[in-house]
């Protein structure tokens, strides 16, 4: 199931020609996806999430497929999310919802909602590099 999701994500990324790197030009806004309210995160979320690149509350948030699976073994699910260029560790749940290391116990419907929730949580603080001891 995760492989299928991954292929879907990678395929969508290739089609969009989007590479998520710090210098990537802003992509057109994907169809609006509201930050997930409690009702949403209870539902199974189907389909491939939309890549995004936007400024939210003064922070640049970006998300999209990772083409190689990334340099780090913990980049599960084929997606990378960044806040001001720093990677946010994210994970996809079996029901299609998402969590991050900043909001670990409160699933969100999409990576964009996850990035926005992280911006709120961070209150302006910078992410620090991941350290998997």
């Amino acid at each position, binding site marked *: 199931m*995760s492989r299928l999701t991954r292929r879907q994500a990678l395929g969508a990324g290739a089609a969009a020609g989007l590479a998520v790197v710090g210098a990537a030009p802003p992509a057109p806004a994907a169809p609006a996806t509201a930050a997930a309210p409690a009702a949403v995160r209870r539902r199974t979320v189907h389909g491939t999430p939309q890549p995004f690149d936007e400024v939210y509350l003064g922070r640049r948030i970006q998300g999209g497929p990772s083409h190689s699976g990334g340099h780090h073994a913990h980049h599960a699910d084929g997606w990378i999310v960044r806040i001001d260029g720093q990677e946010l560790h994210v994970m996809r*749940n*079996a029901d299609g919802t998402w969590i991050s*290391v900043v909001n*670990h*116990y409160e699933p969100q419907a999409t990576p964009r909602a996850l990035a926005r929730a992280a911006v709120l949580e961070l209150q302006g*603080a*910078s992410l*620090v590099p991941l350290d998997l001891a």
Partner: protein
Amino acid sequence: MTVRKNQAALTTAEKRRFTDAVLELKRTGRYDAFVTTHNGFIMSDTDHGPRTGHRSPSFLPWHRRFLLDFEQALQSVDPSVALPYWDWTVDRTPASSLWAADFLGGTGRSRDGAVMDGPFAAAAGNWPITVRVDGRDHLRRSLGARGLQLPTRAETDSVLAMPVYDMPPWNSASDGFRNHLEGWRGVNLHNRVHVWVGGQMATGVSPNDPVFWLHHAFIDRLWTQWQTRHPDSAYAPAAATSDVVDLHDPMRPWNDVTPADMLDHRPHYTYDTAA
């Protein structure tokens, strides 16, 4: 024998000895090793890959062993100390004595979430957040922010009534007692409490807040209560399940302990009141 007590019943002296022992583990660096271990498992336990500490059947025995390690570390500092538990179905507001300045301190201030009182406030200088996911080095909380409510006794009882320990696919999508207690499905007990506390407790480095141990001591007690209510129900899966810790499989990071070894808490500690 170690007796784990309800935090609300602790004497002032017991609270002081507990927080002093926690601060001593912090001073020597032993505390942060627990935070690092927990975050490592949080980030590597996945629904469709190897999973040990979370989102899997071994969530309960893994945390039982993790808490035993921490309790033994505390007792190496002060042999009189035991882990207290926080019954959040009863002590369910920021006005609880749990959050008083003589114990864990209260919620964070609105500007930046910083906890401003108690032994773990940044100003006291004894609680730097060193294992962290962002640049902030002070303990933060936002107790009950956004109107979130802690689980009720009725919600908790509805989960304790579930007779099956865990079910395929043995992850965050599972039906059964374990996943409902963990909170990925249903009324949401354990996960919701992490979110209610907020701050570091809502992140992968949640043991940075000492309330982590009191929360998990109560989750651990609920597992015992479930066993008492369902004496014919057993840990599952029993064998031959890929990516998942079967009953007799060793658990990382210890590699010398299995879920079967952790099913009975009584060799390790008892409780102040009957389960």
